C-alpha cells in the first residue's frame, strides 16, 4: 500500500532472495539520503546479489542526488551486489552519462530486461 506522496518516496519490492527493486518516486536530492539508504537496507538481504533502481517516477534530481547514488554504489559494491537501473527518461540518462554513473550502474530499458540482467 502506497503512503502519501512526499518530495521523495521509496518503495521496496523483493523479487526473490537474490533480487530487489527499489522504486524511486519524486525527487532525489541530498535530503533524500535517509529514505534512499533505508530503502537500500530494506532491499538488501544476506543473499541479495542485485538491487535494481526503478526511476520511472523520478521527477527531479540535483547534484546532491548524484552524490547519494555514488554513495549507494559504494555500499552495494562493498556487499558484492550489482546495482542496475531502469525507467530513466532521456534527460536522466544524459545525466548518468555526464557523471559517468552509467559505467557503474547498468541501465536497462525496462524492468523485465533489468531482471533478466540480474539473473545473468
Amino acid at each position, binding site marked *: 500500500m502506497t503512503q502519501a*506522496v512526499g*518530495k521523495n518516496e521509496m518503495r521496496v519490492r523483493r523479487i526473490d532472495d537474490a533480487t530487489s527493486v527499489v522504486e524511486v518516486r519524486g525527487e532525489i536530492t541530498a535530503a533524500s539520503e535517509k529514505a534512499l539508504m533505508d530503502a537500500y537496507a530494506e532491499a538488501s538481504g544476506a543473499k541479495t546479489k542485485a538491487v535494481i533502481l526503478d526511476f520511472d517516477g523520478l521527477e*527531479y534530481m540535483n*547534484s546532491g542526488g*548524484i552524490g547519494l547514488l555514488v554513495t549507494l554504489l559504494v555500499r552495494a559494491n*562493498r556487499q558484492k551486489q550489482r546495482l542496475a537501473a531502469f525507467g530513466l527518461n532521456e*534527460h536522466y540518462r*544524459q*545525466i548518468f552519462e*555526464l557523471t559517468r554513473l552509467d559505467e557503474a550502474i547498468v541501465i536497462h530499458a525496462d524492468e523485465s530486461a533489468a531482471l533478466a540482467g540480474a539473473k545473468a
Partner: protein
Amino acid sequence: MDERIDATATTPATRTSDPTATTPAARRSDDGNWAKPVRTLSTKDAPPGALDQNVAGRRINAANGGFGRLFQKTFSVRLEGATVTPQEVIRAWKTRFGEFWPKGQQMFLPETGIAPGEIGLINSSIRGTPTMATGVLVIYADDESFSFMSPEGHPFAGPLTFSAYDDAGTTVVQVQELTRASDPLWELAMMTPVLGERMQNDIWRQTLRNLAGSVGVDAPAVESRIVCVDKRRQWRNAKNIWQNAGIRSGLTAPLRLLRRR
C-alpha cells in the same frame, strides 16, 4: 520525520522522507540545470594569463574512476548577522568564484560566470613548485547550488558541490565533495601531513572565510566534517598517473620559461 516501514518483505514498503505533500503545481524542474554530456572536454579562448593545459581532450573523471580512498567532506560556515539570502550568496559565488579562492589558486571562468556546461581553467601553485594547470566542468547549477566535476589528471575525481541554505533565519554556505584522489601520487600527497591539508581542505576553508568576509562576516568558524566512505584503493585505476596534471605541468614548465624569454 514521517517514517513508515512495512516490516514484511513481500509487501511493498514505502518511506516518505519529507512529510510535506508535494502537489503537482509545486513540483520543481531540473530542466536546464544540468550540462549536456560530453565525450571529452574542449577549451577555447583561454583568458589572458591563463595556462590552458590538461583539460582539452580529457574526459570527466567520476569518483568510481579515481584511485584513492573515497571521502565525503563537508565544509560550512554560518553567515551570522548577514542579511543575505542563500540565492544572493550563490549568485555572487557563481559570478565571482575566483575572487574567493585563496592566494596561489586561480580559476578562470567565462565572464558570464558559472553555468551548466561551462569550463573553468585552474592554475594552482604551491610556493616553490611550477604552476599546475587543470580545470573543471560545471555539471549543475541552480539558484541555490552549483557543482563541478574534474577532468582526468586533476588531483581529485568526483563531484564537488557548492550550496547555500537557510537555517532558522541564518544563511549557511557549504562546500561538499565526494571524491577520491585520482591516482597514487595524488593519494600519497593527500596522506602527507600539512601538504594534503593545504592542497585541498584549507582551500575550501579559506574560500568560505573569504566568501563570508565579502558579506561582512569576518573570521567566522568553519565547520568541517570529513568521513571516509570507502577505505579501499582502486588499484585498477593506478594507471591514471599517466595523466597526472601536476607531472605534466611540471614537465612543460621549462618550455614555458623558455618561451617567456
